[in-house]
């Protein structure tokens, strides 16, 4: 086989765990190398991901058509009511707009869309060229807000002004403007906000139910099944519970500073982390031991039915090897544990946006010989999948064809998934999906299993 080499500029972002050998920290938090085919997207993408599930707002993309077209109904974030988030709105800037400015077009677009759809708010996403042609988005937003009486929030998400993480921050910034503007009367002292949960395939509903069973009031989910009014009241919660830390930690920190709301980091993937996320919330309310009792009750009931149902999968999957490449590093930790609980080991772990602490923890968690990568690309991923003889890749749409071309199983753990993977039921779904992909007889025809080319 042809030897695949790693680009010189990328070597510091790759690491193989070898016990007894001192190795430098992995380089991360850097912008992608030009020409390296990063799996990352841009600032706009980061903002769009975070705000996308807010279902009673219009999301207007100010720029040429592509950015809106490629994000139309792209995610599995579901709503229990309005579904404005599933529509795609763009100012569709043309050459003349680029020359003479797009402010007028933006203004008219907004006024008309607000009249037609009667949203509770509007988010205006700046794209690359808006940052260049100098449209005064803030001024247009202010004017429209005044005329229509709804919040019109600019999101500074010009694609080139940073990485996806900066997009998260721009989105959180827009959310911060809403938080604190609603009434917090009648909010219980035993209340939380769920941050960084996007209600993919209804996952937020699953999580919310667990907390409600414990007697906890969920004030707002940011942003899964999101509603503007709920966001406005978020400052009334006692605790922020942050999943998807990459996207929402900034917001949690801001809320801590401004409203004195502490936050904890959790993950809802896998039995261990899911249970911990309930216990950790219960621990925050020590004056109410019944909350902890209820949490234990929820866990024990769920695990009682879940555990036996996993054994079939564990039996089949024991000894199989997985590669993980997802957006945020925090999810990687949970996935490693979840995979171990069904007998699988991890030979490659990486993320698009992990930070130094994330990678340090990953290093600690991983087995000897595991490869750790930051901001990887198809060539590297393929190299390690083949070298480490993985049986499964966990990733998103862009990683899927790599797995299938090389003849290994795949589990979609990205925002487009249609099956809930969070919560206890999510662990069952996850194990089932992994099992169905890894154990499929179709791989017998794959060249790596001896099939003919």
């Amino acid at each position: 086989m042809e030897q695949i080499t790693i680009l010189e500029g990328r070597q510091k972002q790759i690491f193989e765990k070898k016990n007894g050998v001192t190795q430098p920290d992995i380089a991360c938090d850097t912008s992608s190398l030009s020409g390296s085919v990063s799996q990352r997207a841009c600032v706009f993408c980061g903002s769009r991901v975070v705000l996308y599930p807010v279902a009673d707002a219009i999301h207007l993309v100010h720029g040429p058509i592509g950015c809106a077209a490629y994000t139309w109904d792209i995610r599995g974030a579901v709503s229990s009511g309005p579904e404005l988030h599933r529509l795609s709105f763009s100012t569709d800037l043309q050459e003349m707009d680029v020359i003479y400015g797009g402010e007028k077009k933006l203004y008219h677009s907004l006024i008309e869309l607000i009249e037609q759809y009667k949203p509770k708010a509007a988010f205006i996403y700046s794209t690359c060229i808006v940052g260049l042609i100098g449209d005064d988005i803030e001024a247009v937003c202010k004017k429209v807000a005044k005329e229509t009486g709804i919040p019109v929030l600019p999101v500074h998400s010009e694609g080139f002004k940073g990485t996806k993480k900066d997009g998260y921050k721009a989105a959180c910034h827009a959310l911060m403007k809403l938080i604190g503007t609603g009434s917090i009367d009648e909010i219980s002292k035993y209340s939380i906000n769920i941050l960084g949960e996007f209600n993919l395939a209804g996952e937020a509903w699953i999580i919310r139910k667990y907390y409600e069973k414990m007697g906890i009031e969920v004030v707002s989910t940011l942003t899964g099944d999101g509603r503007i009014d709920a966001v406005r009241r978020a400052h009334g919660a006692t605790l922020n519970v942050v999943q998807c830390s990459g996207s929402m930690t900034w917001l949690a920190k801001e809320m801590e500073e401004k409203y004195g709301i502490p936050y904890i980091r959790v993950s809802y993937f896998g039995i261990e982390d899911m249970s911990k996320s309930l216990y950790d919330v219960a621990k925050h309310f020590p004056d109410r031991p019944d909350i902890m009792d209820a949490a234990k009750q929820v866990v024990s009931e769920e695990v009682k039915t879940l555990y036996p149902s996993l054994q079939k999968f564990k039996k089949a999957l024991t000894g199989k090897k997985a590669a993980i490449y997802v957006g945020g590093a925090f999810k990687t930790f949970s996935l490693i544990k979840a995979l171990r609980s069904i007998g699988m080991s991890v030979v490659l772990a990486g993320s698009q946006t992990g930070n130094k602490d994330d990678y340090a923890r990953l290093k600690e968690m991983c087995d000897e010989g595991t490869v750790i990568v930051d901001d990887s690309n198809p060539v590297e991923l393929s190299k390690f999948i083949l070298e480490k003889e993985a049986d499964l890749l966990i990733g998103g749409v862009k990683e899927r064809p790599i797995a299938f071309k090389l003849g290994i199983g795949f589990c979609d753990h990205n925002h487009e998934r249609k099956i809930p993977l969070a919560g206890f039921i999510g662990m069952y779904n996850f194990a089932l999906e992994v099992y169905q992909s890894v154990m499929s007889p179709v791989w017998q025809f794959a060249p790596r299993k001896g099939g003919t080319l």
Partner: protein
Amino acid sequence: MKHAKTATQNACKLCNPLGACLAFRGIESCVPFLHGSQGCATYIRRYLISHYKEPIDIASSNFHEETAVFGGSYNLKIGLKNVSDQYKPQVIGVATTCLSETIGDDVPGILREYKKEFKNGTPMPILIHASTPSYQGSHIDGFHAAVRATVKTLAEKGEEQSLINLFPNMVSPADLRYLKEIFADFKAPLMLLPDYSQTMDGGPWGEYHRIPPGGTPASAIVSAGSASASIEFGSTLEASKSAAGYLEETFNVPRYHLCLPIGIKESDKFFSLLETLTGKARPEKYEDERRRLIDAYADGHKYVFEKKVILYGEEDLVVAMTAFLSEIGMTPLLCASGGKSGLLKKRIMELIPNMEELGIKVREGVDFVDIEDEAKVLKPDFLIGNSKGYTMSRKNDIPLLRLGFPIHDRFGGQRMHHLGYRGTQELFDRIVNTVIEQRQNASSIGYTYM
């Protein structure tokens, strides 16, 4: 309800660079490279993957703030160097984006500098540049711009050969394979560009390929300048924007401009042209295909006669489908496109001079909300177009027959035929079945023979 008209809602088009990436994917050993932000490459990859189910690596020069301020020259050069090192391509197809176009990067100049500065070391790939600002036109313009740029970069004048150039437009990998089969059966040498029949619909890999096998070799494109003729599909594609137009203008290679061959009449035109150009009769196999198609038309005619549909998609596809539908007695009440060539109506009228009498309406530059508004009034029996009409199809309970690109919610879009007798047969069968299914579902009896 008053509809917002200024904003584009649920666009019926994609942006210019997407088409360029797909076209570059049809050149052997070529890496498409977008000069702009990282997101453009990533979004376009994701969008293409959801249709083709193939890995598609698109490099990006990954603009940052300082790049936007000081120009993209440095990033582009480093990017090209990295792609050359990691992919070892023979060709890199550089397409611009709204960002690099707006800051006014002189890409041809940067590419010249790159060739000078980096001539030692890594073997120098052929560099192609297509200008594809996203604020102009749509994906189909990017597609044609890339094909034209490729020919412009590579084609040379040589001794005239019996070679025929075929520029098939943005068709499916299955269509491309069918076209190659036709030329092989005619024993006619062919330069097909682009040819992503294998790169976007290939077999499994035993090892990782940086660039998937397949595509038109650069050496073959060189001889495009000495071909005996160019055939180009696409009624609204003008010579000034097309590869065949360039070859005619520069090397006097005659340009034969056809509608996408869908339906018997348009397919006949294509086969007749091949007979003229090659001096050979069409192989019996295609006579058989044609005969079976005519027979199928007879068997199915009653299901489809006077059925009303709304047709949407790229303008050339819409024109070709209109030609086909009119020969089976179906009426496209609305022929719609997000594209805006200014030629759509004219081309449809050339095919169906009494279009207005038949109540056929043509609209360019529309989005799916416009089409939905029309659908509410026109009440078609079904919709014909790509997957993106599903939202309005579901909302208004009008069945959708999927074709073209993208097909994101059905399996096998890349293996769907549209062209020639074979493609028409497949489309006709699917249309008849759509009607039958509709009738069967609506029947209280549930007939088991339809």
